[in-house]
């Protein structure tokens, strides 16, 4: 069994009798393995955030089942165990910090879990070091930059010692530098600490960093696979008005024009070397 597993999950808001049930999620079955880095991709209203909130029992499926580390999210008594295992980081860094001092905010999660004081201290210091915010531990959050605030929010989840971190568009409100900071932090946590990462995003260049990409459209899974597998389906993605990374797009257009290039280019340097080779051949 995977770490997070959904079985035929359906979800709809409001079950008013006058309205026909409006499904936000329809029949979603997927699996996320321990230690994996999965990107959940889709444009606004595709249901990707709704699905993410099922992964830590913030929302419960209207139909089907969600299991987190073999625990059924419908079981009310397991709610806090599930949330401890799978932490959720939200989009707006300003709205998820609780305390007026960085280290006290990071301590909020373990304090809720009833961890002994001495251990909280250790966890807070470790979490802040892991996201590179240890020097800022006694600052006020409102004096930090957006990227720094978001890293503090990640540290707040880390201090609960979760196996999995779900990030709901964590970079959407950040400047380019903040985005890089947050993405580097996420990748480091995934590689060095083996934490399972589910990154919800609508940026293609963030999705290519993942081990696996799941593309959602209209509450269903459109396509899933490695970034190379997914982004080689340029036509399918374009039909659903989704973009592909710029390098992929360029090579795809050249292929349309009759050039013989490989169809799985994702990164700029790959694209450059392919073009160089082609130009040398002339």
């Amino acid at each position, binding site marked *: 069994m995977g770490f997070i597993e959904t079985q035929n999950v359906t979800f709809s808001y409001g079950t008013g009798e006058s309205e026909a049930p409006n499904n936000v999620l329809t029949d979603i079955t997927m699996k996320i393995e321990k230690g994996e880095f999965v990107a959940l991709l889709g444009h606004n209203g595709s249901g990707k955030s709704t699905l993410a909130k099922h992964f830590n029992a*913030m929302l419960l499926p209207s139909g089907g089942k969600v299991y987190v580390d073999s625990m059924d999210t419908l079981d009310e008594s397991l709610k806090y165990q599930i*949330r401890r295992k799978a932490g959720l980081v939200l989009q707006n860094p300003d*709205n998820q910090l*609780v305390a007026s001092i960085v280290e006290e905010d990071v301590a909020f999660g*373990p*304090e*809720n879990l*009833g961890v002994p*004081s001495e251990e909280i201290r250790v966890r807070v210091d470790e979490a802040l070091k892991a996201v590179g915010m240890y020097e800022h531990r006694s600052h006020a959050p409102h004096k930090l930059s957006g990227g720094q605030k978001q890293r503090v929010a990640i540290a707040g989840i880390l201090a609960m010692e979760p196996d999995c971190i779900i990030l709901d568009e964590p970079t959407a409100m950040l400047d380019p530098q903040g985005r890089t900071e947050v993405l580097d932090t996420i990748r480091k946590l995934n590689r060095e600490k083996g934490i399972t990462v589910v990154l919800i995003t609508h940026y293609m260049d963030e999705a290519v960093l993942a081990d696996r990409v799941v593309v959602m459209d209209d509450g269903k899974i459109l396509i899933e696979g490695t970034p190379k597998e997914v982004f080689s389906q340029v036509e399918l993605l374009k039909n659903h008005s989704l973009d592909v990374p710029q390098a992929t797009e360029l090579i795809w257009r050249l292929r349309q024009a009759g050039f013989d290039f490989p169809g799985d280019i994702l990164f700029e340097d790959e694209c450059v070397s392919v073009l160089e080779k082609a130009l040398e051949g002339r």
Partner: protein
Amino acid sequence: MIRDITLGQFVPGKSILHRIDPRVKLLLTFLVIVFLFVAGNFISMGLMVAFVLLAMILSGVSLRLYLKSMKAILFIVIFTSLLNLFYGSGEPLVQLGFLKITLDGILRAAYISLRIICLVFISSVLTFTTSPTDLTDALERLMKPLRYIKVPVHEIAMMMTIALRFVPTLLEETDKIMSAQKARGADLESGGIFQRIRALVPILIPLFVSAFRRAYDLAMAMECRCYHGGDGRTKMKQLHLRSHDYTIIAVTICVCAGVILINIFLPGMV
């Protein structure tokens, strides 16, 4: 300009008063305030004044800030001392129609003014040397026994913490909304008082809407971090009384005892 507003009057520092346990500071401040009223003559009052002055010096905060905090209540001091000035008994020193000023009145006025001034200064010592977070924390811990009479102590402290956290965020937001409305031609600076209040409506409405949105987000973030009220909650920061706390407690109690002794053995100076 709106960003200059700071909540509370905390002056960061490393003085001994900054370092003592906030619970001790809070309780001792209350004790001193009570004893400002217990002090019954000029000698015991003199002792209290000396104690308050010592606290002000130990706090390492500049006198200018203390005087600034006096400004707000200057009127009350003048008013009460004038009132007392004319209500003294005994032989009049000066007679102004039906008003008479007596020696007793002058002493009384001086006495009352000293009491009010000390009251303000000692509370300022507390707020200057204790951060709002520490103050909230101390309040929560001290009020804990009230839980048994169904006072939601944890919830009150949580609300105060969140309020303190969001004050700068909302101030920044107000600034942004004001600029946005000005850019659309809102006139905030002219007209009479009512016109100006009306002009605030287009600022307050977006501010409220966004505050509710933030509250919704924050509630979700708190639930994600397993918040479920005060039950079974632990705290990272533990407060322990250390030697300098005991020293300050001892000194304060000695002063208070002194006040009582002076009251008993040297009565009736006022």
